[in-house]
């Protein structure tokens, strides 16, 4: 049998021999992603009582995510940055885990981008530059190309002492937003650091 099915959990899994075969063929990752997608979809659909379910977002999940995110914002107001970051990270995780793939994409995208922007700011403020950089990459990969995203990315790269990449990011940002003063200031700072790194000063 090429697939294993658990009647209680209604989940599919791969038998050992198939895992080995897929690993040998180099196709294990794609297969596992697909299986995970099917399991997640199945779990969501089984929970739906209406056979003609629509992409309407689930109100209960929306409330849970919103309350978690708002508790993070409340802690931010009290200057508890680390706690605020934890709660906002949890809200992002919750959105990714609990939302079903068939719920409206436009709402899911807007929601995650909004929370991610706060998470990035908090990561930068608390010195987690690598985390911030990865989240910025995520925003860029989802089509967000605003000047503040470029500013934050260049800043994170500068703090990680990746001056070449930071300069490239700044140039990209400046080509799209030539009048952005913060990007210009960052570019100066990056050039100064690069010169120092190269022993010119």
């Amino acid at each position: 049998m090429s697939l294993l099915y658990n009647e209680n959990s209604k989940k599919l899994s791969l038998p050992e021999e198939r895992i080995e075969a897929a690993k040998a063929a180099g196709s294990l990752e794609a297969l596992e992603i697909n299986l995970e997608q099917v399991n997640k979809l199945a779990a969501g659909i089984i929970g739906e009582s209406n056979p003609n379910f629509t992409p309407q977002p689930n109100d209960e999940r929306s409330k849970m995510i919103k309350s978690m995110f708002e508790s993070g914002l409340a802690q931010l107001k009290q200057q508890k940055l680390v706690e605020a970051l934890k709660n906002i990270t949890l809200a992002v995780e919750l959105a990714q885990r609990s939302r079903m793939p068939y719920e409206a994409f436009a709402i899911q995208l807007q929601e995650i981008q909004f929370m991610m922007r706060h998470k990035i700011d908090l990561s930068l403020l608390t010195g987690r530059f690598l985390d911030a950089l990865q989240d910025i990459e995520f925003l860029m990969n989802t089509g967000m190309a605003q000047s503040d995203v470029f500013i934050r990315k260049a800043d994170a790269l500068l703090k990680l002492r990746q001056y070449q990449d930071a300069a490239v990011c700044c140039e990209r940002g400046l080509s799209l937003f030539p009048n952005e003063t913060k990007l210009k200031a960052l570019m100066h700072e990056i050039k100064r650091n690069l010169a120092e790194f190269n022993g010119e000063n």
Partner: protein
Amino acid sequence: MDSNSTFEGDFHGFNGTSFNGTYGNSTNGNGTFTGAEDKVETIPISFYTPVLYAVILVVSLVLFSRHYKQQRLRQLAEQPDIFDEHDAEELYREIKEMSQTQKVHEKVLKAALLNRGAEAIRRTLKLKELGPQIELMYKSGTIGEDYWERFKAETKVVEAEFRDSIQEAEALQPGWPKLFATLCQEICFNQALSRRYHSILARKEVCIKEWDLQLNSDGTLKK
């Protein structure tokens, strides 16, 4: 009188031979050809001969076209796919097969079909995105005829795949296909979002390795 009789004789001769059935006689009046005209024979042919000709022609054309089509299909089938795996489709077929021998929840099959439909949409979008560039490359000669054929065949395969998914949806739940297409589109985009989100951790590990970063347990940089 002589001249008259000659004329009449000629005239008769002309009349007598020229309109007897062959065009060769149009040059009559010249005695040289009259002997050859006499040798022309009409061969009686059967009514079935032209029919047989037509049948042979049509059959040979049909055979040729069938052989040509088969050869083209074989060539297309032998070409490597642009997408290197078909996990979504294979998983659906496996689950469907499994449901005939084992009790599988109906919604698991539906989930696999939605995943298959979403994958077909993703591939359609990818091919549409690539289309103008590939056409440009083909026209400029950067890619050859075989890749162009592969691209066109893949586009048709992906369209057929989505149509097949819709037919399966109708078979699973009559009247579902309209909603099925909408759901597949949402699923396709959300899965893309999810894949991007899940790549964050893997990318972080790569950055740590490549940039030789020293991090504390809370993710801050070591001083």
